[in-house]
């Protein structure tokens, strides 16, 4: 499955934002996070699961997430992630940053110089 390289790079940069966003509503484990991102974006974001797990672990070591192992009803135990107050603060900062970034991108893209100037 070929992926758009630009989208892949954008996904890498936005992965922490997306992960914290979906975890704001409750605990999830890694696979559920990937599915949730895919579903909410209507399939536009297919998170590289290879970058999802390093992002989860990085957020955990930075204190933005807490992780706990829980045995499933069926199958193997899973590592559940929960957002922490530090994670909420980071999410707020990312939202602000992303809004400013996307707004700036829109402004640049929408600007038209008057012809013949």
């Amino acid at each position: 499955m070929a992926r758009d390289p630009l989208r892949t790079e954008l996904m890498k940069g936005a992965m922490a934002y997306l992960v914290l966003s979906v975890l704001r509503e409750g605990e999830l484990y890694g696979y559920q996070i990937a599915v949730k991102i895919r579903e909410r974006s209507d399939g536009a974001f297919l998170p590289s699961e290879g970058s999802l797990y390093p992002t989860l672990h990085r957020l955990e070591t930075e204190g933005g997430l807490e992780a706990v192992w829980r045995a499933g009803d069926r199958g193997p135990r899973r590592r559940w992630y929960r957002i922490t107050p530090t994670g909420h603060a980071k999410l707020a900062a990312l939202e602000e940053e992303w809004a400013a970034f996307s707004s700036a991108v829109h402004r640049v893209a929408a600007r038209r110089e008057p012809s013949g100037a």
Partner: protein
Amino acid sequence: MPDPLDRATFLLRVADAVDLQPAEVGEVLEELTSHLSDAAAGWRAAGLDVDDAEQRAIRSLGDPATLGHELGRARHRRRHLLAAVGGAAFSALGFGAASLAMVWLLAAAVVLCALSALIAITQVTGMSGSGWLTGPSASVGTVVLAVLWFAWMGWALPARVARRVGRSVRGVRLAVGIGGLVAWSVVLWTLYSTDMDWILAIGLPLGPVAFLLAALRPATSVTTFPRTTARGRLALLLAVVAATTGAGFATVQANDSSSWWSGDVSSIGVASDTEPLLAGSGSPVNWGDVQGGPGLFASYVVGDPSRVAAFEQRFSTFRLEVWPVTVVDHQVNLGPAPLAVAATPVASEMVVGLDVPSPRSPVQVEAVVVLVARDGTRVVLDPGGLDRTPPWKGTLLDWWCTSR
């Protein structure tokens, strides 16, 4: 296109690339395994067959080596460099001190046993055992012990440092090896001052090299000192007590006939009993503690005040001379020139002193006190005792960089 990987191979490659402690690697693999199971089940539910679903799940995780590397980096971020270096230094110091104490205890026990046995052998065979546990043989023993200790440290330390800083042994071995080589070399070359000879000067620098070589092939898990049973400890204690007692008993019984000697100093002067002016009192040559404080001094007081003028007219200089000697069949032969001389003009009371020279290769010396007459005649007042020059003391840098 590369061959598709099966799940076990994929996980093995992740484990190979992730630079974490084994327990953390296990957790990472368990999380990825559960992810692969969930993802494969999801693709099966979407209509793929079992094999395709499994391959799709594995491919979605990307390159296993990259994933392992990124996971390791993600978990290292909290471990700042300073904490890692501090943890490593703490491990090295604690473990180093404990293992050094262990090595020296064992060495002391071995030396005690060897001493006891050697003295017993000399008693039975009549051989001379003096010097077996000192001089070059002691230096060889020290070098062997030091190199073994450094190698043991280099072999055992990476696993301890890895546990402390949360990395894999493979990930820290080079840093530990090079760090140890540099740190130990600095200590040995510039800070560690000791009695040095050629064997130590060449052998001690090998220690940090042994550390590096052993660190490159380290123990894969934390090693501890072997624990002995109560019976084993009791046996060790009895062995040490027996060796100590045996050595002490043998020392008391020993009669070292090699210590007596007679000297002929006629080559450097005439005997004092031929000189009628010498009615004063002189102290014999006083050696300081040759091992610790290599001082040497002598004094002379002209006892009869009425003879001072004649004494000063007859003699010009009061000298303390340290001569290299060889002893053959209890006969002392002086070398061609003194190693050290201290002199003072003649007076009614004279004191002269000098530092005993410490050449790189210790030699046997005899200190003599000489009065030099104005006509050049030398009168040997006091042939001092025989002794060896103290060991050359300093750092490796001093040894190799100062003039010989």
